[in-house]
């Protein structure tokens, strides 16, 4: 009887046990395949409704009678001008209105005296979906301001370039795929998250659960070495984790390829090529997270205790990409040595339609593989200690 045969016997049993656990299995597998579709539908609809609001701007105006020229300009720009309700302030706070234009009753007077006349935009910038409308109203007013100023200069015989020493040109080098930054973030984030969640229940059940059910001691009395037990269990968790990640990505792929998503001007690519790159980037996570989860599970006497401990791990893994998102600088090169960070960065590269560099991929494997070895050795050592038998 070789070590390999015993390891395979353990692997086979753990897989059988996992797939017998219908409730956990169904919930995990269903939620992973459905995550992509539900997620993308929500995001795309949000983006579509934003685009809609920007295209067909409705601008409630108060005091339009004091500045008919402004209203006429806005209407020429296809803006639907309405009369603002009296309680516009409260309506904006509630989110019923995106933005309201207030024209000062002294507008005409100020203009006549050559003073700057006041127009005021009222909005709540903390509302994401109002942002497009706010920006458009703001841009329209600024362009009216500039046009009017240029006309005045021309009347005085001055060319408009005197007042506009800078000519600002924008040249966005983003490829079409790069524009859906939020979607990019979420897809990468979810891919990473799947690799943690996928193995969690199985890893804790096979360690803390085994101890709690009192089946660990009989297992330790068989000729199976601790190392064989650990590797067998680890392989089982990895396989299940890989299945969950693959299903999650399949969900994303199918949705983006076939679902009738609203057109949002983001030719977002997640094809077979991106699918493959994602899996390639996530392999170190699929190997590392099960090993760490097994270690956390082996330290606990019961499943519940292990669940509490694992929330720390979840917190760290979910926080790292957020830190990266808000860290607006270019990533330092050593980031490839940081597990999770490296993968998040490489997932983003893949989503931007680029192939991750082989050197970077290789670097991103180092730390996870080292952690796999450390965690598995630690679990095997725990299993050889007498203390594992106590604390029923």
């Amino acid at each position, binding site marked *: *009887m070789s070590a390999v*045969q*015993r390891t395979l*016997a*353990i692997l*086979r*049993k753990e897989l*059988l*046990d996992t797939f*017998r*656990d219908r409730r956990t299995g169904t919930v995990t597998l269903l939620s992973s395949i459905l995550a992509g579709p539900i997620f993308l539908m929500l995001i795309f609809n949000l983006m579509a409704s934003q685009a809609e609001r920007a295209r067909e701007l409705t601008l409630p105006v108060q005091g339009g009678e004091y500045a008919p020229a402004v209203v006429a300009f806005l209407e020429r720009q296809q803006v639907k001008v309405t009369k603002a309700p009296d309680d516009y302030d409260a309506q904006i706070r509630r989110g019923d209105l995106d933005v309201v234009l207030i024209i000062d009753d002294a507008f005409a007077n100020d203009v006549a005296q050559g003073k700057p006349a006041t127009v005021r935009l009222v909005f709540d910038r903390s509302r994401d979906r109002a942002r497009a409308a706010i920006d458009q109203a703001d841009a329209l007013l600024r362009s009216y301001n500039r046009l009017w100023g240029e006309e005045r200069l021309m009347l005085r015989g001055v060319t408009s370039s005197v007042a506009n020493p800078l000519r600002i040109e924008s040249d966005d080098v983003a490829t079409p795929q790069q524009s859906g930054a939020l979607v990019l973030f979420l897809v990468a984030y979810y891919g990473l998250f799947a690799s943690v969640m996928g193995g969690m229940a199985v890893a804790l059940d096979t360690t803390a659960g085994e101890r709690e*059910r*009192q*089946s*660990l*001691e*009989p*297992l*330790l*009395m*068989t*000729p*199976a*070495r601790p190392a064989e037990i650990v590797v067998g269990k680890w392989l089982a968790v990895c396989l299940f984790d890989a299945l969950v990640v693959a299903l999650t990505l399949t969900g994303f792929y199918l949705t983006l390829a076939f679902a009738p998503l609203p057109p949002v001007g983001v030719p977002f690519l997640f094809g077979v090529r991106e699918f493959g790159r994602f899996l390639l980037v996530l392999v170190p996570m699929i190997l590392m997270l099960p090993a760490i989860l097994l270690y956390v599970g082996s330290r606990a006497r019961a499943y519940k205790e292990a669940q509490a401990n694992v929330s720390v791990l979840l917190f760290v893994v979910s926080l790292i990409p957020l830190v990266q998102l808000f860290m607006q600088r270019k990533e330092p090169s050593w980031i490839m040595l940081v597990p999770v960070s490296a993968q998040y960065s490489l997932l983003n590269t893949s989503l931007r339609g680029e192939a991750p560099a082989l050197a970077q991929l290789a670097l991103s494997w180092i730390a996870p593989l080292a952690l796999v070895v450390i965690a598995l050795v630690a679990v095997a050592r725990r299993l050889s200690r*007498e203390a594992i*038998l106590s604390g*029923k």
Partner: protein
Amino acid sequence: MIAVRDIAKAFGKRRDVRAVRDVSFDAPDGAITGLLGPNGAGKTTLLRMIATLVLPDEGHAKVDGLDVVTDRYAVRERIGVLSDARGLYPRLTARENVRYFGALHGLSGAGLDARIDTLFATLGLGAIAERRTAGFSQGEKMKVAIARALVHDPHTILLDEPTNGLDIMSVRTLRDELRTLRAAGKCLLFSSHVMQEVAALCDRIVVLSHGRVVAAGTADELIARAGTAGLEDAFVALLGSDEGLAA
């Protein structure tokens, strides 16, 4: 054949909980040897040392001449243990539970299944062999655990309080099975705090108290030594009290 010599084990940070002290005894083949002692006498620790799970601080134990520390994996192949912890995998069927342990002992295929069929038939598990063990009664779980311990046909069999929580019928089945194994020449070591159990079944009895061997021998030898009329009185006399024992 089990030979234990001057074995000792202490627990705790300062090693001040002396669970087993200088225990020596033999358990021959073709006989049932009983370890009798009140709760906390060191029976489970002693069995775990012989089962290679706990390392002795002093002394040594040999199973068929193999040392439980240096040859631990060879010992594990030769012993079948029904330990204090006898949890099953609730999502697996009775057969799958036993098959898993058979596979870890190097058995496979039709030979393994035939062996399981025989065991299940003897233990009366045939009707529930393909059912998941989640809903099993205490007695049914116990029988599956016994089948699991015996699947590789071990020569030496260790049983830690095997009758705990069993009904009368299950106890009878177990006794019959142990007698069959004895007749087959196996070496059986059986721990219990139930005097009746030990008296009814064991050829040789080792009486343990506070981690030490108080007396050892056949039932007649123990009665003669204690100078009492029956075996149960002899136990009480040898231990000094009947605290922690059950009739």
